[in-house]
């Protein structure tokens, strides 16, 4: 990879999900997930499931596993707060959960309303029995997601991969 051609980490995430045989892609959109969402939507073997709120995806992932399919939940950090009570089902039933979370409210944030939930995201996940990985280096994102998928689906635990604003770029609002 040359400096002029940044590493295509969303393609690496897609490849990791494909290799993990993920069939249902539940999401509330975020700009940081835009390219990954397009890649998944172009794959006929992946079912896109848009959600009205993120906790719906936690329940969908559980139902998919009951039916023998693997799912992933894509969301922004603000959605993590919406998931907390539903994550109790994941823990108590030992459902696998793989979620990829684009961060707001940290590095370079312009919108102060994003900051409280952004700061609370890793701790909230950990309190809800979710193992937290952070992928900051573009070249390491794919491996991190692949390892998180293996951990979740093979060991029946919940794993979140956080994608920080250093990776995805901070939203600037034109300022």
């Amino acid at each position: 990879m040359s400096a002029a051609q940044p590493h295509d980490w969303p393609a690496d995430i897609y490849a990791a999900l494909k290799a993990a045989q993920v069939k249902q892609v539940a999401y509330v959109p975020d700009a940081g997930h835009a390219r990954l969402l397009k890649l998944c939507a172009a794959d006929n073997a992946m079912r896109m499931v848009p959600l009205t709120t993120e906790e719906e995806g936690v329940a969908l992932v559980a139902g998919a596993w009951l039916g023998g399919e693997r799912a992933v939940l894509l969301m922004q950090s603000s959605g993590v707060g919406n998931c907390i009570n539903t994550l109790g089902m994941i823990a108590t039933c030992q459902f696998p959960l793989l979620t990829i979370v684009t961060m707001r409210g940290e590095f370079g944030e312009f919108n102060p309303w994003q900051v409280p939930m952004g700061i609370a995201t890793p701790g909230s996940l950990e309190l809800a029995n979710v193992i937290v990985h952070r992928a900051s280096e573009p070249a390491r994102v794919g491996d991190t997601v692949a390892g998180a998928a293996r951990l979740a689906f093979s060991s029946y635990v919940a794993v979140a991969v956080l994608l920080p604003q250093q990776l995805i770029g901070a939203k600037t609002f034109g300022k």
Partner: protein
Amino acid sequence: MSRANTLDRRAVVAALLAERGDLLVVAGLGAPNWDVAAAGDNPLTFPLWGAMGSAAMVGLGLALAQPRRDVLVLTGDGELLMGLGSLASIGVQRPANLAVAALDNEAYGETGMQATHTAHGVDLAAIAAGCGFARSETVREMAAVEALRARLKARQGPLFAQIKIAADTPPLVMPPRDGTLLKNRFRAALLGPDAALA
């Protein structure tokens, strides 16, 4: 309330689960859970003891994963009201093999029979219709309950039924509550013993 709600919840659930065969059932937190257990413990029932508002979406994930099996979500008005957006998300996917039945007693039965929004006229069937369910209805008669089961067998979903039941409290009949057991036995019954090796 302008009309009497007289259907017996246990009779409704017994009719929906009669000769259930390989029907997959998700039961929502609270009394629907006890109703389904009263109809007979079955490994192909996944009862939610928590995660209020999640029953419909667990059913959706299951229905998408198992398009050749019928999936029935049996929940209550209060549980469904906590996850109303689920109806919109189901409307996007439109799985023909999914039915969501809300046993509507217009009350939070587990916490002291406080009124839910449906007691004030909120129309769950109209909401489901607006979300794109293939068929959505308010049910006040047993004949319509039996027709719902037949329509699910015919894969005419997604189906929604707001079933107006009497606000009584039949004896507690509880399913197992160990979530890992419930999950694993469901998968073994549906996917075979090798599911544990997946």
